[in-house]
C-alpha cells in the first residue's frame, strides 16, 4: 500500500499578500522508499513536513497516509494516526532530560494502547537497532549529539511506524556524527523502513534514493 499519496495539495497562509506555501503538490511514496526533500528556507519545506506529519491540515487536495484519507479526519483522529503511523525525528532531538535513554525511547508508547509489561524490552530492542543498547541506562545529557539523535531515531522506530519523518535530522550535528546518522538511515532503508528526510543540506539529500526539490511551494522530483 502506498505510504504517502498527495494529490493536488495546497496550503495558503492568510497574509498580505497571501503566502502560497504549497501549490498543487502531488507526491507518492511507496513502502521502503528513501526520499529526501530539499529546498531553501521559505520554500514551503516546513509546511510540507507539517502536512506530511499531520501537524497541519492542507486547504485543498487529498492526503492518504497508509491508505487513510487524512484531510477529513478530526483533530483526535489525526492525533491517533500520527501517534501510531509516523515516527518523528527532529533537528533538536527533543529528548527529555533527567530521564534515562530507555525511558525516552519508551515514551513513544505512552500514548498508545500497548502492554506496559514489555515496554522497556521493546525500547531496548529499538535502541539495539540503532546500535545504542549499551547506553540504555544513560542520561541523554551524557551522550554525544550523534548518539542523542540515534536515541531519537530509536524512539521513532518503536511500534514500527509506516513512515519515518525526519526534519533536518543532522542540523545540530558535526560532520562525523552526521555521517553516522546517515549510515543508520541507509541501514534502515535496507531494512525496508520508509524514510522521508527534509533538509536543506545537499550532502544529506544526496544519500537518499529519491530526491524531490521544493521551490516556492512547488514540488519537482529530480531524476537521477
Amino acid at each position, binding site marked *: 500500500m502506498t505510504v504517502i499519496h498527495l494529490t493536488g495539495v495546497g496550503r495558503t497562509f492568510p497574509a498580505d499578500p497571501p503566502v502560497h506555501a504549497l501549490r498543487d503538490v502531488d507526491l507518492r511514496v511507496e513502502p521502503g522508499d528513501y526520499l529526501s526533500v530539499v529546498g531553501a528556507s521559505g520554500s514551503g519545506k516546513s509546511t510540507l513536513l507539517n502536512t506530511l506529519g499531520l501537524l497541519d491540515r492542507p486547504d485543498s487536495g487529498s492526503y492518504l497516509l497508509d491508505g487513510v484519507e487524512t484531510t477529513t479526519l478530526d483533530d483526535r*483522529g489525526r*492525533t491517533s494516526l500520527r501517534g501510531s503511523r509516523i515516527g*518523528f525525528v527532529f533537528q533538536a532531538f527533543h529528548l527529555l532530560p533527567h530521564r534515562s535513554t530507555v*525511558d525516552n525511547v519508551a515514551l513513544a508508547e*505512552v500514548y498508545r*494502547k500497548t502492554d506496559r509489561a514489555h515496554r522497556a524490552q521493546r525500547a531496548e530492542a529499538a535502541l539495539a537497532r540503532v546500535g545504542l543498547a549499551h547506553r540504555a541506562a544513560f542520561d541523554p545529557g551524557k551522550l554525544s549529539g550523534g548518539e542523542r539523535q540515534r536515541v531519537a531515531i530509536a524512539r521513532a522506530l518503536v511500534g514500527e511506524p509506516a513512515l519515518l519523518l525526519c526534519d533536518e535530522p543532522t542540523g545540530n550535528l558535526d560532520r562525523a556524527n552526521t555521517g553516522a546518522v546517515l549510515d543508520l538511515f541507509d541501514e534502515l532503508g535496507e531494512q525496508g523502513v520508509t524514510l522521508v528526510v527534509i533538509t536543506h543540506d545537499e550532502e544529506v539529500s544526496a544519500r537518499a534514493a529519491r530526491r524531490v526539490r521544493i521551490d516556492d511551494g512547488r514540488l519537482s522530483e529530480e531524476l537521477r
Partner: protein
Amino acid sequence: MTVGRPSMGVRDLLDEAVAGITARPVRTGLTMLGTVIGITTLVITLGVAATAADQIAGRFDAVTATEVTVVIPTLPDPALPGPVAWTALPDLVRLNGVRAAAAVARPDSSANARVRTNDLHDPTSVTDRILPVVGTTTGLPDVLGASMATGRYFDDGHVARHDRVAVLGGGAAKLLGVVTVDDGPAVFVDGQAFTVIGVLGPVTGGLDKGLSSSVLLPHTTGDDRLRLGPPTTVLIRTDLGAAPLIAEQAPIALSPNGHAALRVLAPPDPATLRGGVQHDVNGLFVVLGLVSLVVGAIGIANVTLVTVVERTGEIGLRRALGAARRHVAYQFLAESVVVGLIGGVLGASTGVVSVVAISISREWTPVLDLPIVAGAPVAGALVGLLAGLYPALRAARMQPVDALRSGT
C-alpha cells in the same frame, strides 16, 4: 486500517507526572512551600484551638460539672410555709441522675448569730463569734463531697426527734476552737446550747457557699429553736452529664405548683464552652492559613506556567508521539495536583508535629480532629488542581508545530 482514539493509561499519566516533578526537585520543593505553609498554619490553628478548648473544658472537672443549686425565694415571714417543703426532698432524690441532695435553710436572720463554746463571761476577751447558723437535711456531706473531720453528721433520727445537736463546718470549728467531739462539747447559739457531734472536713467543689464556716443544725431543731424556717437553697449532686437535665427537672420535683419562682444555678455546658473558645481562637488564624493557601496556589500556578513555557519542546514532542490536547492538559494538571498533594501531606505532618510539640511544652493533651488531618492533603491536592488549571489549558492550546520548532 482503522483510526482509533488516542489513549493514555492512568498509570502512564501518573508516571509522567511524577517524572515531570522529580526532574527539578529543588524547584518542585520551592513550589510546594506555599502550600506546605498554608496547610501547616491551618492544622496548627485548628489543632491548638481544639487542644486549648479541651484544656479549658477539662478544668470543669467532674466535681464542678455535677453541681446544681436551686435557690428558693425567701418569704418576708419565715413562719409561713415556703414554696418548697422539707418533705419535697425525697421527690427530688428519686429523680434519675441525682446522686445526693440536701436542703438548706439559711435565712438572713440567722446569718450573724452569736456563737460561743462556753458560758463563761470573760470581760477581757471576746468569746462570741459571729457565725451563720444553718438548718440542713441529713444528706449534706454527700452533696458537698466532704467527709467528717471528726465525729458524725446528724441522721434522720436526730431530725425526727428535733435533737439539740450541731455539726460545725471546718472553718467554724477552727474559729470556735473545737478539735474533738469525744467529750461532747457544746456550742451556744444565741444563748441556746447544742451538743457538737461532728466537724465537717474540707469541702471540694463550688457548693460550699460558706457552709464550712457555719454551724449546721438539723432543720427541725433549727426551726424550733432559732426560727430558721423553710429551706432557702437545695444543693444537688448529680451523675456526670446529668446536670443539665436535673437543672430542668429539679424545680418541678421540688415545687410542682411554684417551680417558676425557683432559680436554678447549673454548670455551663462544656460543649458550648469548648465551641466558644474554638470560635475565638480560630477566626484570625484560619484566615491566615487560607491566605497562605491562596499564596501557595498562586505560587504553583506561576511555576507551572513557567514550566509549560520551558517545556514547549516536550509538549510538541508528546503531541507528535500521539498525545491529544487533553493528554497534555492532564499531565500538567496531574503534576500540579501531585505537588499540591505532597505539600498537603508535608503541611499536615508539620502541623501535627507542631501541635504535639506545643502541647508537650504546655503539658497539655494534644487534641486533633481526624477529619482535619486527613482532609489537609485533600485540600492541598485541591489547591494544586485549581492552580494547575490555567497552565494546563495553556499547554494544551500550544500548537505542536510551534512547539517542535522551539529548540529545547
